[in-house]
């Protein structure tokens, strides 16, 4: 996804949530190193989150993933203090939200957050327009201003014309768009999304995911997104934190998670994840064996090719920019002809499809059969970086180790 600024916006430090009577006892008794079961047996308290430490950067699409009961929903609620954490700190834009009083908290929520819920959390007695404008109403924005803004965001999420309907008239996907519009109307810095697409049909879900990706590329907000769906996590996330039993087991990019699972739990989680959806062309490409410079003569090029025992060369210009492919056969034809070539003629260079480093392997499936040669990988300036053979593709999807050393 787009460029990621490096400034950290949210710092979660040693965050605990313990449910039960007088939960601070757990720490006074020094039980924090015991297991969840031991703590429960000894105090009757249930650990909801245990010693969570995370850093979330501005503009990052951050996924909290885990099965139900893993503490992911607790964590996202703790961020906005719908659930009050027992111990630890959550610093957002420099302010510790766990230490705010009710008034500060309310103001902070108004200016910082937008939240989207699994079951939409819409108000059934209000129209779509009023629902979308609700966050602004809470802030005390005047009617005209908030309706104007609400209309604008409803259009952004594709609900123009539905303003005067009631939420129950809308399908699940559309209701969630209203939920998203309501969150966006506030123009929040941080968007919290609690399993927003879990209740939707698979097709609608995919469509909403795609639209969210597109929206995010425009908005560049910090998004914290809870899901139990690995594919959703891999598709959307810049960073993924995997949670289990209230603890964070692994944090990493989608690629890290799939290629280097931290433990058996994560391994099990990702085992049915197709690497094709995660690994990028850049991670499986290998060096180009024969680079043919466009100013070389056919004879030199052919000699180099023969020495490497290859049948093709990748032609680049002075700036290493990729021009196309030339075959040994074509060079032989040039040499056997009557005309003497000082350099390789443009007409002999075969133009082929290229891909950039960040293309997913999944997308190579459609390109590979059309390309008679290994697919060249280039950067955005068309500079040749490497190439991908069909073997690379097969190997990358047949084992999770990645195919970078092939």
């Amino acid at each position, binding site marked *: 996804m787009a460029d990621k600024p490096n400034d950290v916006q949210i710092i979660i430090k040693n965050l605990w949530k313990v449910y039960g009577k007088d939960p601070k006892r757990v720490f006074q008794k020094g039980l924090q190193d015991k297991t969840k079961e031991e703590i429960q047996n000894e105090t009757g308290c249930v650990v909801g989150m245990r010693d969570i430490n995370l850093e979330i950067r501005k503009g990052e699409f951050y996924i909290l993933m885990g099965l139900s009961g893993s503490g992911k929903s607790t964590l996202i609620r703790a961020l906005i203090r*719908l659930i009050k954490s027992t111990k630890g700190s959550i610093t957002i834009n420099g302010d510790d939200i766990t230490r705010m009083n009710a008034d500060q908290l309310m103001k902070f929520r108004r200016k910082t957050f937008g939240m989207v819920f699994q079951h939409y959390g819409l108000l059934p007695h209000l129209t779509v327009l009023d629902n979308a404008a609700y966050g602004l109403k*809470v802030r005390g924005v005047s009617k005209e201003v908030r309706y104007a803004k609400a209309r604008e965001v409803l259009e952004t999420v594709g609900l123009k014309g539905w303003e005067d309907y009631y939420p129950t008239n809308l399908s699940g996907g559309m209701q969630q768009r209203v939920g998203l519009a309501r969150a966006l109307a506030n123009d929040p810095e941080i968007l919290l999304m609690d399993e927003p697409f879990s209740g939707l049909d698979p097709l609608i879900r995919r469509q909403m995911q795609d639209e969210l990706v597109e929206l995010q590329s425009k908005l560049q907000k910090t998004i914290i997104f809870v899901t139990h769906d690995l594919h959703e996590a891999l598709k959307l996330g810049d960073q993924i934190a995997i949670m289990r039993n209230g603890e964070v087991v692994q944090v990493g990019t989608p690629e890290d998670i799939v290629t280097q699972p931290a433990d058996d739990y994560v391994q099990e989680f990702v085992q049915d994840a197709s690497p094709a959806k995660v690994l990028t062309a850049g991670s499986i490409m290998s060096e180009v064996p024969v680079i043919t410079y466009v100013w070389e003569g056919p004879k030199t090029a052919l000699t180099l090719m023969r020495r490497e025992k290859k049948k093709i060369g990748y032609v680049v210009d002075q700036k290493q920019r990729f021009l196309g492919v030339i075959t040994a056969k074509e060079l032989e034809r040039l040499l056997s002809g009557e005309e003497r070539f000082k350099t390789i003629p443009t007409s002999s260079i075969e133009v082929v499809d290229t891909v950039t480093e960040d293309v997913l392997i999944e997308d190579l499936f459609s390109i590979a059969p059309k390309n008679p040669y290994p697919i060249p990988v280039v950067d955005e300036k068309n500079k040749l970086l490497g190439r991908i053979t069909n073997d690379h593709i097969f190997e990358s999807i047949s084992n999770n180790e990645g195919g970078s050393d092939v």
Partner: protein
Amino acid sequence: MFKFPEIVEIPLAQGIDKIMDWLLVYLDGFFDFIGMIILKVVMAFENLFLFLPWFVIILLVGLAGWKLIRSLKTGILFMILMLIIGTFGYWELSMRTLALVISSVVFALLIGLPMGIQMARSDRTERILKPILDGMQTMPSFVYLIPALMFFGMGKVPAMFATIIYAVPPVIRLTNVGIRTVDVEAVEAAKAFGATPRQILFDVQLPLAKPSIMVGINQTTMMALAMVVIGSMIGAKGLGMEVLLAISRIEVGRGFEAGISIVFLAIIIDRITHSFSESREKDSK
């Protein structure tokens, strides 16, 4: 034969009597004040109902049946029922009964809604109130007449006092349940957007709890009607008094007419208050 030992005795009755004596002596002025307010309200309703010509009221009831329940047939039926009450010769008494019921309900809501809201907000209040409400609802209704009689003497005011106490539990209970069963995410959403507790109450909780609260109001109203009839035992003029007289004189026909009138009144009030909860639900769907 084993007789229960008479030495073992908990003097609860005496204790309560003592408390009542104390209240009567020291809070006399307070009860006078409450009695005055109750009387003012009920008289206002009574004067209004007796001031309006009978046909206007019948028309209004018919209109309410037609518009609120959305059925012309029901509206006409209501008008016929009211006419029958009139032909029995009970028009004035039924208007007095209606005034008692409506003003009692007004007070019951003024007390019950805030209590229900408070109960929904605090688990502790709920724990304390629940057994009290259970007790109030299982207590025979006549029992309420005794303290009412002692505080306020005979007449409308004690009857209403007893009615208010007797009729208030359902609206408290259903307001509490209604608010507690509001979609958690809707409330969380409001909180997440920085809504104040007040905004959450008026924007989210009360509107979403409305159907449940309306059912509570319906039940409270019906209970108030039942109690107002009993209240005639301590001197509240109305249809109940006719039943009481018919009993003491063993006049079956008279008692039947009065009884039927009460039933008709009950049907009309029930249908109309019931329509509040239903029509709202339909609107939001």
